[in-house]
């Protein structure tokens, strides 16, 4: 049995990150370690994991075997065991493959992007740690192990976002991400605990839970489903916990590419898919998820149309795309959702890396209205970006088209027409804001050519090309039957409930055409407004959309500020001025009454005799009363 290799998929990045971390500390404390050593470890770990994952992938082809490896008993209380176990089924191996692959590419890209950074080693330490946590999340055989990866991902994203920690704003963004994630984790933990109590007696892993959950009453299941979804919301930046995602762009661009494209944010989608057996039992929660996804998608897309920061636009687009995925998984189209995760990984990573390349080339300029004419200067970046933009906009035959089409098809065929309408409308917006970006950056004329462009190393451009190819081809694993293809991903991931089969082919074609038209409409508007964009000054935006609907401000005043006030109220008002006042007041009062009583101690002999007289009188009176 080679099942123990499953653990090594996770362990390799962990060990590598540990070695890099120690080496980095060594490097800053004792003697400098050259960058290539870091790169060696940093780059080989994802590759090795990928190869291991691929070997499992090969073993899985053609059969339904589930690889399970229980490393050791993690915990045993009261007769219940919780194992540290790893499970590879088709879903998780699929995730492993593209996480490690895309992760590897981003690593390569980062080795170029971060070349001049002083914390080069630290970066790879974080990066590998992140990757390891993500793999743990995917490969965990039960909710607890999954949660470990889940939290590890959250923490490493904190580390990566606040990578440039000297600036408090970056750390603040990291904090925001972590706390928002923690809100989600709260939901996850509650769900986990509830599940443990209602269905954990036969073993707390996915395979057993699948059976045990069947006997759990529906209200409890609903509760679990909701709570779990709160976790997903936090991690995948959906309404209302999305606020951290735009701020998270404070980290280096490869971080944005890794975290906000391929991996971390999709964890929520993965989780819902992983718990499909649960959500299958409670379709009403699924519908709720789908609506949250749809609203998030629309909301993010609207905001994205007005942003100026290139990375923030991409961040909102990520949120929007994640919304799509949730529409799919919420409606039970798990394979569809995962399909979009897959394609999205490619084009979104590509977009971020392209954006990163532009940013680097322009000496860390992020405002798109200060860019322009990049098409000529960096043609390679332009072409790859164009491919990615087409892919995200849903233009056939690029990857995004197929997956998005399937999602909308799922929505339509489920009878949730509202979802479908939102989806289509969002598609228009998507195409619009993405091409707005493309036009302004690559065709625009705003950029003052007073500076020489920064050189883009091979390590940065090669991944772009690979990912561009991926963005073109990724969609072909899920070509709908209608177009004579075979839904590879659907069949790979198994016979999940997939309602898209219930519509007629003609409907499907109509829908597809509508999608394409929607995308084209968006592109057309963008073309009209922004082609060869030329504006001498950077435009100043105002308005509710540009201010992201003031969501941050609302949260600040409604929650953060209130909690701070409460904190001050508790620690200074209640504690100091109430409880401690009582405590100290008692003792001070005691001392004060001591001073009053001391007045009896006036040293007058006759007074003392008088007190004796009174005392004797009282005692005598008492005695007389008793004796009577």
């Amino acid at each position, binding site marked *: 049995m080679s099942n123990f290799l499953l653990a090594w998929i996770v362990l390799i990045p962990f060990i590598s990150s540990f070695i890099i971390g120690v080496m980095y500390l060594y490097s800053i404390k004792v003697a400098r370690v050259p960058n290539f050593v870091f790169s060696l470890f940093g780059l080989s770990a994802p590759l090795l994991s990928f190869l291991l994952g691929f070997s499992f992938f090969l073993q899985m082809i053609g059969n339904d075997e589930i690889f399970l490896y229980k490393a050791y008993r993690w915990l045993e209380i009261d007769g219940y065991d919780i194992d540290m176990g790893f499970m590879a089924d088709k879903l998780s191996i699929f995730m492993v493959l593209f996480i490690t692959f895309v992760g590897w590419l981003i690593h390569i890209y980062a080795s170029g992007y971060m070349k001049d950074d002083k914390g080069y080693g630290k970066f790879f330490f974080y990066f590998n740690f992140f990757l390891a946590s993500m793999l743990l999340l995917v490969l965990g055989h039960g909710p607890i192990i999954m949660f470990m990866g889940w939290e590890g991902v959250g923490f490493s994203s904190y580390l990566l976002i606040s990578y440039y920690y000297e600036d408090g704003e970056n750390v603040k963004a990291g904090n925001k991400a972590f706390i928002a994630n923690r809100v989600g984790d709260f939901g996850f933990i509650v769900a986990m605990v509830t599940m443990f109590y209602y269905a954990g007696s036969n073993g707390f892993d996915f395979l057993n839970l699948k059976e045990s959950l069947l006997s759990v009453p529906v209200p409890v299941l609903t509760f679990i489903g909701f709570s779990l979804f709160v976790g997903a919301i936090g991690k995948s930046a959906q309404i209302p916990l999305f606020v951290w995602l735009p701020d998270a762009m404070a980290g280096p661009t490869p971080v944005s590419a890794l975290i906000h494209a391929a991996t971390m944010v999709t964890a929520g989608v993965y989780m819902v898919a992983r718990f499909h057996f649960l959500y299958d039992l409670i379709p009403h929660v699924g519908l709720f998820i789908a609506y949250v996804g749809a609203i998030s998608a629309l909301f993010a897309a609207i905001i994205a149309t007005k942003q100026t920061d290139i990375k923030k636009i991409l961040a909102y687009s990520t949120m929007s795309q994640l919304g799509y995925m949730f529409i799919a998984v919420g409606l039970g189209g798990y394979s569809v959702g995962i399909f979009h995760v897959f394609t999205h990984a490619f084009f979104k990573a590509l977009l971020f890396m392209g954006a990163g390349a532009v940013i680097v080339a322009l000496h860390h300029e992020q405002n798109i209205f200060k860019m322009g004419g990049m098409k000529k200067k960096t043609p390679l970046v332009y072409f790859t970006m164009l491919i990615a933009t087409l892919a995200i906009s849903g233009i056939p035959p690029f990857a995004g088209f197929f997956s998005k089409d399937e999602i909308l098809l799922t929505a339509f065929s489920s009878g949730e027409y509202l979802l479908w309408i939102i989806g289509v409308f969002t598609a228009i917006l998507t195409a619009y804001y993405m091409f707005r970006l493309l036009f302004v950056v690559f065709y625009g004329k705003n950029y003052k050519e007073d500076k020489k462009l920064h050189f883009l190393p091979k390590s940065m451009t090669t991944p772009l090309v690979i990912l561009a190819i991926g963005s073109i081809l990724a969609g072909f694993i899920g070509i709908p039957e209608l177009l004579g293809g075979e839904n590879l991903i659907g069949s790979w991931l198994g016979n999940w409930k997939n309602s898209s089969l219930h519509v007629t082919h003609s409907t499907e074609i109509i829908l597809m055409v509508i999608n394409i038209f929607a995308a084209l409409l968006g592109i057309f508007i963008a073309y009209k407004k922004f082609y060869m964009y030329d504006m001498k000054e950077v435009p100043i935006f105002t308005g509710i959309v540009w201010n992201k609907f003031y969501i941050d401000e609302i949260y600040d005043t409604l929650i953060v500020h209130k909690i701070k006030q409460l904190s001050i109220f508790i620690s200074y008002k209640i504690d100091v001025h109430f409880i401690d006042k009582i405590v100290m007041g008692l003792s001070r009062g005691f001392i004060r009454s001591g001073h009053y009583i001391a007045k009896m101690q006036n*040293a007058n002999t006759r007074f003392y005799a008088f007190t004796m007289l009174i005392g004797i009188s009282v005692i005598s009176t008492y005695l007389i009363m008793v004796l009577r």
Partner: protein
Amino acid sequence: MIDSLLAYITLAMILFSIGFLGVVSRKNIFVIYMSIELMLNAINLIFVSLGRYYESMQPQVIAMIIIAIAAAEAAVFLSLIVVLYRRKKSLNSDIFTILSQKDSHE
């Protein structure tokens, strides 16, 4: 018999009370001392009358002893009065208050 005993004891208690009140109300140390002596003598009176009542010599002896003790006390008292007078030139009990809490406090 018992009636006369009660009369004596009542007298003794009256004397005793006068003595006590004297200690409390008079300022002159001499008078205070005399008041205490009065109380002692009141008790002597009780013992002596009890001796008569029980027709026993024991209380009489006790009374003698009390007188002796009173004398011993008197010796201390009188010498102390001398010392007190020498220091403050007064025998007002109320001026001897340096040990009061207030004084030691400040």
